């Protein structure tokens, strides 16, 4: 049994430790909420977006708040981050190819579907594709993805410093 006199002496110290813990948790939540809802730096690795993003990993700036405020302003050709429809713990980066209502050619390369196969993107969904068609698991495998899965867009690549780029929102259309 702890003698009462010891407890009285320790009480202010315990209170201080408890309060510091709460401050730390508060700061941790603030940091995490900022990263998930406004913008944040994140590490991106994988072969599916070569040559735009490198396989061995890069630091990119992910901008989430504009998508939260205006979720219907996705443009074709934008680099977006989304939660994977096959694995909810993974965040993936792909390019928007089709918006709701578009008719998209499923696989022009003919790898995963015949090159004449087309699909109508349903309401509230988008068609995404990785830049590296040979090594990308995207809408050719799991179909159109719901816009509710989209987190935000990649605004810029920060590291490596010699390959610093700002990714623009506007795609140029090549008309016949």
């Amino acid at each position: 049994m702890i003698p009462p006199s010891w407890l009285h002496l320790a009480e202010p110290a315990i209170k201080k430790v408890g309060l510091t813990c709460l401050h730390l948790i508060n700061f941790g939540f603030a940091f995490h909420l900022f990263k998930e809802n406004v913008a944040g730096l994140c590490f991106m690795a994988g072969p599916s977006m070569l040559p735009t993003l490198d396989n061995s990993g890069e630091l990119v700036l992910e901008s989430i708040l504009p998508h939260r405020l205006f979720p219907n302003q996705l443009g074709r050709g934008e680099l977006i981050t989304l939660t994977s429809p096959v694995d909810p713990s993974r965040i993936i980066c792909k390019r928007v190819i089709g918006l709701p209502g578009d008719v998209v050619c499923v696989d022009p390369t003919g790898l995963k579907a015949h090159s004449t196969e087309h699909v109508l993107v349903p309401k509230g969904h988008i068609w995404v594709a990785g830049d590296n068609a040979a090594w990308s698991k995207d809408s050719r495998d799991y179909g159109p993805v719901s816009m509710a899965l989209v987190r935000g867009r990649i605004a810029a690549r920060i590291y490596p410093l010699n390959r610093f780029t700002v990714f623009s929102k506007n795609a140029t259309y090549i008309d016949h």
Partner: protein
Amino acid sequence: MYWLPLGLGFTQYFYTLKTVRGRSMQPTLNPDTSSWDDIVIFDRYSINSGEPIRKGDIVALRDPINSRKMLVKRVVAVAGDIVKTLPPYPDAEVFIPEGHVWVEGDEPFRTLDSNKFGPVPLALLDSKLMYIVWPLDRIGPLRPPISPVSKRGASRDFRWYSDMAAFEREQRRQSRVTTRSTTTSHS
């Protein structure tokens, strides 16, 4: 104001209290006998911690078609199951792919569920409904319906009959689902 991140973090990642609106989960939630909308504790922690979603759980999910809406539905089938669908779904049977679930409202007549938009990716699930807080006559945890036990000699009351009806409804829902294990046992 300084402690706002703590409060926000708690409601986003742990538990939150919300009202359920609509009639698609009758009679489990918002039955016609109740004058108020149900107030329920939503459990976000079990979804965030990666606990597997089981059949019979009631979950809150983002509407795949209109990402601003939240729907409250019951998980009827998980990845790997085959579901016999109800109209207006175009196919008679659906295989649930990996990472997806099939959700249906308890009230099949007036509900926006997987029979309209198909299997839902797990990432769209927001929270599990844990406990009804209001109204007080239905206060208690939300659990998958089980067959009620009748005590020897005790007459069956209204509560027994409504529990049995809920169990029979769950059986009817599950009769349209074939799980992975039952399909492989035939080979």
